[in-house]
């Protein structure tokens, strides 16, 4: 990551960090993707009290986050939308029935601005899947709203014991980069 990215994070990424921190989350379990690298860089740089934990696969991240909650922490899971498919068994047979709350921040693929056909079917299905399993979700509509939406999603999750997702669309995470086209924006 370049110096510039660390020092001048995109507003949406700064908002995600501020929102999860304001909600009391000090544990972030993640499987990286390119837009989320801005969030991870910000956390490492400016939120030293937040512990970052890398998982090898998204389902594992949900298991680790569940254990962190049982142990008294307020976990956040960061993942790309493609990883939601990898996570569904842990979400539906652990996180939801045991009422283990966590903030889930989803970097969207397959929505407006996508260039990779392999990302499209899952990306299109994310909202419907979350509705079908009964996980509330909100969307970051503008970079300026990111902190507010992330914080409210998290506080609602922890207060109601129901994990909640915050979707960050590609039109937000890629900004102008999407117009440069192709793999550069991935």
């Amino acid at each position: 990551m370049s110096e510039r990215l660390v020092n001048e994070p995109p507003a949406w990424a700064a908002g995600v960090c501020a929102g999860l921190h304001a909600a009391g989350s000090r544990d972030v379990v993640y499987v990286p993707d390119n837009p989320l690298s801005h969030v991870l860089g910000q956390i490492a740089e400016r939120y030293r009290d937040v512990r970052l934990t890398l998982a090898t696969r998204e389902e594992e991240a949900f298991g680790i986050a569940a254990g962190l909650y049982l142990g008294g922490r307020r976990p956040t899971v960061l993942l790309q939308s493609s990883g939601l498919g990898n996570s569904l068994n842990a979400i539906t047979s652990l996180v939801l029935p045991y009422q283990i709350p966590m903030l889930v921040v989803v970097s969207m693929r397959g929505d407006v601005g996508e260039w990779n056909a392999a990302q499209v079917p899952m990306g299109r299905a994310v909202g419907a899947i979350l509705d079908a399993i009964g996980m509330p979700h909100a969307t970051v509509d503008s970079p300026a709203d990111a902190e507010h939406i992330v914080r409210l999603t998290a506080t609602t999750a922890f207060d109601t014991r129901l994990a909640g997702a915050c979707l960050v669309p590609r039109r937000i995470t890629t900004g102008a980069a999407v117009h440069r086209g192709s793999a550069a924006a991935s």
Partner: protein
Amino acid sequence: MNRLEATRIVVHAARDAPIVASLGHPAYDLFAAGDRPQNFYTWGSMGVASSIGLGVALAKPESRVFVVDGDGALLMNLGSLATIGLLQPPNLVVVVMDNGEYATTGGQATPTAHGADLEAAARAMRLDAATARTEADLQALVEAPPPGVGRPSTGRQPLLIVAKVTESRPTAKPPLDCVYIKQRFMAAIGNPEAAAPVVERR
């Protein structure tokens, strides 16, 4: 040694420490071997027990944390060993009840029945690891011996024990109420959920 006997040894060694159990027969035997509030019984999420245990171990570094896993379950989430090896929580002990079969689903053979070696996999991912074939072996491994005694190496690494067990028909099942299991567990490990603070809304 059958799985129930092995589970009794783990429960005894754990004293007041939390134990996370994989779904099906491992959880049933944990309940039969010694139901206690510090037991977290999973009813689903096959493969994820070691990840849950890792999360608890990170949140409670002052406590030993045990996982009772199955061979088939761990094989579903081998990446968990890489993560445990990366983070090196010294307080985490994963006991894999290795009977070489998917016993809960009818006894189909797992890869360990044909030579897949979970101890070697754990070592390759930088865990301390050992295989127990007798009750005495297992006892020596789980009873928290001082570093270098009864342990393959330092005692400062996460430990994975492959307990070679025979299948034993479970005799009891834990409570079905997932929220009850969670709340009882959290209260027992010093983290009562009811006392969780409400975050101020701005």
